């Protein structure tokens, strides 16, 4: 069961925009036949153009699985993912993913600069490519580190490099899977504002998985709370905070505190529900 109720009445954000990503009763199991373990159990929601949607949910609930299905990297067991009106069967060109497992999504035989450059080869001319790479590295705080190899960098630096690759690609839709998990508090704040800025500048649609509820509420136009595995959407919470957001002011608003508490409670509920369901079965 899905709730769209939120602590108070709110307006739907971007109601005028078309949906870029639509999930219709998405289902995914790992394994085959009798060994199949259902993970996604009928997920329905849509993301409109320019919208910033955060996905939160207990660890192991299926957030990464969901993102991979949307990205066309995993084939759903049932249901459909629609991207810009077309059913997703392979990764859409206008979409980029920043992976949770950053240390393995960077290629160890290339410097950071070349890792970032790699997907740009087909998209942009050389001069523009160079500019973009510089800009992206600079914006994640890796200016002057482009010559390092991934294995010469700290965990947080690797993660930022993976983010730079996603940003430089300038996709219409950016999927990010816990992108800031390994960076320090200040860098995290900087990167949050960076993503908001980029969204504002290029009208990028962002689907963002995070564990940090403050972060989710701060960034999102809408927070989607997943239930425990098998997963469906347990809550779909519009965030009615004024834009543009501000790290100090926004977080000081009473509404921020309310939403934050509400999301936290919903995750708790989702989690204990999942435990209860499992006990019942």
């Amino acid at each position, binding site marked *: 069961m899905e709730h769209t109720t939120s602590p108070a009445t709110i307006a739907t954000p971007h109601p005028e925009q078309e949906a870029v990503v639509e999930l219709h009763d998405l289902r995914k199991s790992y394994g085959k036949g009798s060994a199949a373990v259902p993970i996604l159990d009928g997920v329905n929601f849509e993301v409109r153009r320019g919208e910033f949607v955060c996905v939160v949910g207990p660890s192991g609930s299926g957030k990464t699985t969901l993102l991979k299905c949307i990205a066309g990297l995993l084939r759903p067991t049932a249901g459909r993912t629609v991207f810009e009106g077309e059913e997703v069967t392979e*990764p859409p*060109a206008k979409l*980029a993913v920043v*992976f949770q497992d950053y240390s*393995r*999504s960077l290629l*160890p*035989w290339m410097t950071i600069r070349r890792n970032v450059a*790699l997907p740009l080869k087909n998209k942009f001319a050389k001069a523009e490519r160079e500019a973009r790479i510089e800009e992206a590295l600079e914006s994640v705080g890796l200016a002057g580190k482009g010559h390092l190899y991934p294995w010469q960098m700290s965990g947080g630096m690797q993660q930022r490099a993976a983010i730079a690759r996603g940003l430089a*690609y300038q996709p219409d839709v950016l999927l990010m899977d816990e992108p800031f998990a390994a960076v320090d508090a200040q860098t995290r704040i900087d990167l949050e504002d960076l993503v908001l800025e980029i969204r504002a500048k290029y009208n990028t649609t962002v689907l963002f998985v995070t564990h940090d509820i403050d972060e989710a509420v701060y960034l999102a136009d809408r927070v989607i709370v997943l239930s425990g595995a098998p997963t469906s959407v347990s809550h779909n919470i519009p965030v009615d905070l004024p834009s543009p957001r501000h790290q100090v002011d926004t977080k000081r608003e009473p509404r921020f505190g309310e939403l934050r508490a509400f999301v936290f409670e919903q995750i708790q509920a989702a989690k204990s529900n999942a435990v209860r369901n499992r006990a019942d079965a």
Partner: protein
Amino acid sequence: MRWRGIASVAVVLLGWEAASRSGLLPAASLPPASDVLMAWPTLAAAPAFWASVGHTLASALGGLGIVVLIAVPAALAIGLSRFVRESTWLVVEFLKPIPPVAMIPLGLLLWGPSETMKLTLIAFGALWPFLTQMVYGINQVDHVALDMARSYRLKAWLTTSRVVIPSLLPFAATGLRVSASIAVVVSVVTELIGGAAGLGRDIMVAQSAGNLPAMYALILTTGMLGLLINFAFAAAERPLLFWHPSQRKESD
């Protein structure tokens, strides 16, 4: 720096010499190390010897080149396409264990004691290790990296050249070194039996003449050839595989 290697070679040679001199090794079929080493200058003085070395080396490397040209696309096709993999499976597995030695008469019939015959048999014999290795390597490519490539919609050639081939390299390097020594081996054996020009034929002639020191000096030469090719490959590998855990020892 490589003093250990040099030392171990010296130990083996001295052991051989001592065993021969003490009668432990029968001089009639294995002359003492010093005799064999002494035969070398005589051999090396003859241009024919160097021509033979050239022939053996050229066909081994040539055959290896053919192997790479065939195996790289074949391995990619086999590794990436289930259709190709399953279709060719039986044929490949059937052909692999067929000894190049058994193919020599056929090779001679089709091409005579020629370079073409040698190259064909070398390619046939040295193909499989490299191919096997490449296919195993393809199965080892990190799936997170592959997902990354797919999600950024890297063109097939970019995915191949930037993601698949580099992660294949460690496997390919090993495979190429295995294939290289097999190439030398098949090259020498076809010369020995099939009579194409090269060190193998020289070995056969020396053997017929009962010139044991020369024969063993030639055999040592073939071993040295393999050794040299291997060192060359190892040297070429290092800058290519600098990122690989086996090469970045001083990363700490």
